[in-house]
């Protein structure tokens, strides 16, 4: 059956809702920490709406708190988010033709929206947009709640919601373990990432795994 784009955007929204709660609470955590080190409320909220990257933003806070340079902030952001180059390449053929629309759709790429858009036989632009928009709203809204209400709100830890994201990635992985080779490569990737973590800055282990897997190819 042919699925209309409108229905698929709604599908993306629906698929993303379980993660939106976690995104919101992560956003709250970012807002609370940002306010705690003296980042203005408006700056924190604008950062979430524009950078839209938890890993990059938490890393920025860490460097700024340690009085690191702007160059150090940006180096961390590039290392943590270089995978978006690959995500962008893998969805490129599915995005709109208009360059402005392409750019806007690419801006909604997150680990979660990218992974959800790949669930079907081919990449779904509508699911990417629906899931990414929900995530952006939850992340930015959570940041606003965090900087405004500060310590009044609790974290996602108490109700275990922070376990949803790794569980989600593991379920997607289980869908793709169709061959013995895929299992071996996945286990090797996980082991390499953990082994590299103590020796490298955050984000680098994922890059090394990605580069190694690409070099290895699909024999």
């Amino acid at each position, binding site marked *: 059956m042919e699925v209309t784009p409108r229905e698929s955007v709604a599908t993306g929204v629906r698929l993303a809702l379980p993660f939106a709660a976690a995104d919101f609470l992560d956003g709250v955590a970012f807002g609370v920490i940002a306010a705690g080190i003296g980042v203005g409320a408006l700056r924190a909220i604008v950062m979430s709406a524009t950078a839209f990257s938890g890993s990059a933003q938490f890393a920025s806070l860490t460097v700024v708190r340690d009085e690191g340079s702007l160059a150090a902030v940006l180096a961390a952001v590039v290392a943590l988010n270089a995978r978006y180059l690959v995500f962008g390449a893998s969805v490129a053929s599915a995005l709109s033709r208009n360059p402005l629309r392409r750019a806007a759709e690419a801006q909604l790429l997150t680990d979660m929206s990218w992974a959800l858009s790949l669930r079907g036989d081919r990449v779904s632009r509508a699911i990417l947009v629906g899931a990414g928009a929900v995530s952006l709203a939850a992340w930015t809204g959570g940041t606003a709640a965090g900087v405004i209400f500060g310590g009044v709100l609790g974290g996602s830890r*108490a109700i275990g919601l922070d*376990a949803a994201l790794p569980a989600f990635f593991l379920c997607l992985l289980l869908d793709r373990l169709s061959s013995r080779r895929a299992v071996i490569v996945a286990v090797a990737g996980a082991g390499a990432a953990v082994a590299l973590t103590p020796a490298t800055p955050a984000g680098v282990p994922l890059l090394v795994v990605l580069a190694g897997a690409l070099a290895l190819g699909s024999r």
Partner: protein
Amino acid sequence: MSWLTVGAVAAVCFALRVTAPIALRERGLPSGLERRLDAAVPPLLAALVAVQLFTDRGRAAVDSRAAGVAAAAVVYLARRSLVLALTTAALVTALVRLL
């Protein structure tokens, strides 16, 4: 944090997201590279899970979410329901933290 930092971080994140889609237009990737990318997804997903569950601030450590995520995997393999699996992950993790 200055407005310059806020703007620069946003610009870098935006550039990393749009570079490939704009450079590649609607051509997409050469099929050989696309197969390689496809083969790279399982190890990348496995690495994302492992870094979250088995490291903490740059050191090897078992996270309190590991039991919940393992339970979610069992539920997912049995029922293939994402919602059920993620709910299991949250509940088991919360229980482990109560112990």
